[in-house]
């Protein structure tokens, strides 16, 4: 099984920031030297700290001021946070009168139950990451409850100007690289109250910056975990300059598979002209976690993006995934793999926005549901008037493994140019009993047959994923979930 135990003892970044219960504050973040090999197994953190009872930092004005003061960030960033916090104060929580939230009920969500923890546990066992098995990495980050506990980039990539690591730390060290992009074109703090909350309070997270023309042939790995009831406000910022190439594998997990918590996050992918990014995002929080995320890629001329999303975890997920093609000839392929069970609610809203001519977008989302799970997929291809010769495709297939599961699939087109090719489609259905009978006639048990058929349902997406470890991890994750099918 995948819950291999890694002992992790670390000092809390929050504890240092807020000066609670810390006797000394050695830097425990940059514990890996550049020459360390990165191997997923057991990263050891031996920095023992004594802690006082934890204090949660609520999301209110007083805490926000203390938070800002503790960060010691550049003034432009503090201003950005203040503006977002102001927006948060002016916005209401979204409700079911908004089209995007019509099918997604968050009345049970209460922000007051959550806060940034000033003192995470002294010693925890992190789940085993799933995406990076057996591959040589260019760098790795690990965060727990929005605090960085590991941030490492191989020296050979640092020497070529690559920046990879904890965004919270790198933002102060390299503002000239980050300021032009952070929450500019790929994140809108005014979009809704979750975006505003994230814009004000984001902490931890991951930066990947690859300079012009640099091709990184080793994937980077970012791992975010939360404790029971914990909060993750990590922000991901990827900047590939002209002609650069890189792969980032990011995944989330909870320490306990049934725990609660909250993720309110943002992802920005800025892919320059002719650059090539592969980005994989596996959301595997525990089944009590609220997951809110705004994710956007901006593609320059002839840029390429392959973006794979896997949504497995959380109690309720509401995700906006947006690809803006702003340079002619940009090309994106988006693969969505969702498996919902129990009473999970996964709501994904995709937008493929063709802002200029001659771009190509290809979105394929496949979802399997069992028990009383519910998914919402709402896709939109938007083609601006000047975006002639657009080639856009979107498709969503849903496989219902129980009679109580429900999938809402709402494809959409908004086309203002006249020379375009846009196709979309969606299917929702159960497994045909004849397939099961056929496999059973060949010696498969019913359960083996169902597992095989469900895996086959996703195969078309797996065939598109070009990273072996990712394909295998997602295949295993799905096969593990399939239970009896009646």
């Amino acid at each position, binding site marked *: 099984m995948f819950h291999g135990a890694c002992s992790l003892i670390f000092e809390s970044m929050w504890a240092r920031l807020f000066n609670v219960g810390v006797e000394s504050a050695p830097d425990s973040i940059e514990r890996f030297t550049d020459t360390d090999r990165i191997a997923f197994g057991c990263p050891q953190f031996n920095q023992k700290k004594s802690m006082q009872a934890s204090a949660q930092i609520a999301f209110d004005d007083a805490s926000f001021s203390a938070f800002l003061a503790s960060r010691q960030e550049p003034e432009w960033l503090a201003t950005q946070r203040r503006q977002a916090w102001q927006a948060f104060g002016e916005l209401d929580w979204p409700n079911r009168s908004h089209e995007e939230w019509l099918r997604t009920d968050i009345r049970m969500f209460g922000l007051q139950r959550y806060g940034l923890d000033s003192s995470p546990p002294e010693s925890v066992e992190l789940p085993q990451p799933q995406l990076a098995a057996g591959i040589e990495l260019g760098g790795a980050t690990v965060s727990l409850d929005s605090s960085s506990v590991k941030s490492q980039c191989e020296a050979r990539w640092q020497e070529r100007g690559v920046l990879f690591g904890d965004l919270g730390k790198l933002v102060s060290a390299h503002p000239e690289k980050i300021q032009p992009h952070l929450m500019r074109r790929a994140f809108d703090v005014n979009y809704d109250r979750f975006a505003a909350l994230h814009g004000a309070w984001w902490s931890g997270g991951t930066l990947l910056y690859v300079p012009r023309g640099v091709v990184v042939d080793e994937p980077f790995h970012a791992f975010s975990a939360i404790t029971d009831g914990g909060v993750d406000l990590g922000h991901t910022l990827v900047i590939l300059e002209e002609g650069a190439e890189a792969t980032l594998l990011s995944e989330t997990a909870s320490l306990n598979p049934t725990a609660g918590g909250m993720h309110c996050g943002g992802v920005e992918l800025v892919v320059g002209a002719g650059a090539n990014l592969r980005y994989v995002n596996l959301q595997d929080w525990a089944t009590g976690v609220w997951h809110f995320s705004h994710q956007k890629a901006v593609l320059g001329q002839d840029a390429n993006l392959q973006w794979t999303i896997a949504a497995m975890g959380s109690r309720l997920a509401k995700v906006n995934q947006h690809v803006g093609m702003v340079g002619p000839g940009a090309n994106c392929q988006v693969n969505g793999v969702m498996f919902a069970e129990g009473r999970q609610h996964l709501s994904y809203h995709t937008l493929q926005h063709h802002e200029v001519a001659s771009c190509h977008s290809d979105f394929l989302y496949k979802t399997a549901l069992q028990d009383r799970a519910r998914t919402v997929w709402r896709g939109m291809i938007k083609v601006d008037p000047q975006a002639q010769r657009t080639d856009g495709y979107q498709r969503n297939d849903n496989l219902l493994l129980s009679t109580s599961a429900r999938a809402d699939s709402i494809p959409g087109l908004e086309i203002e140019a006249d020379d375009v090719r846009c196709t979309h489609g969606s299917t929702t259905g159960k497994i045909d009993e004849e397939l099961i009978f*056929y496999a059973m006639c060949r010696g*498969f048990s019913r359960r083996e047959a169902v597992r095989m*058929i469900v*895996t086959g*349902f996703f195969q078309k997406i797996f065939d598109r994923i070009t990273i072996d470890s990712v394909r295998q991890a997602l295949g295993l994750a799905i096969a593990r979930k399939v239970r009896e099918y009646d």
Partner: protein
Amino acid sequence: MTDTLEIAGLHVSVEGKPILRGVDLRMERGETHALMGPNGSGKSTLGLAVMGHPNYEVTAGSIELNGENVLGMSPEERARAGLFLAFQRPIAIPGVKMADFLRHATTNVRHPERKEGEELIPMRDFRKELKGKMEHLRMDVEFARRYVNDGFSGGEMKRAEILQLAMLQPKFAVLDETDSGLDADAVRLASESIAEIGRAKMGLLIITHHDKLLEHNPPDVTHVILGGRIVEKGGPELAVELYQHGYDRIRSQYPEAEAQNQQMIQQEETV
């Protein structure tokens, strides 16, 4: 002791409508039997009932493999016990590669006690065996990488069924029109393959309209089914008579069965 398959007094209904009305048929491993009859007479129903299709309800009678009634077994258990059906219309399983499907199937049938999650037969051995059998059947190795019956031509599907027969090596196999949809050369190849793979080692129950298949696999016994009943039983000469002269003699000789056959065809048409 020779393996036996014995069907006795078998009545089968689909959605409450009787299709088989008392079928008796006994065969031993190593024998080849032909099951012949006009459209709608219940040939395919017998094959599906032998494997335990959930929609085919056995209302009376028994199917015994070596004296053990299989009616209480799931299709999976029947397959593992050594029963096989080559489907008239094989089912596509999108996204599942033929080789993976067959490796799993072969493991389960050869190790009937295997539980889900236990080891499959080693990849190397399996690949070698599969490759050998595919070459023998003159199938392109690329075939193993395609998805099970997905986008296959009619002929490819039938050859894939024969490949499965060759890999699974059942005790008894019902071949339901395994020669239909094939051109003349392919029928000859299929007939030869079946003869090589199964004739001596298995009990074969061949459902066919073609003479070629039976030419290479002359039946020890020919059964004629009409209106859901075996109305006549004979040797290979009976099969020859039927594919040369058709069923007119049979229809007029068994008017009651013929009436039931017509009734079943009408019911099917109204559905």
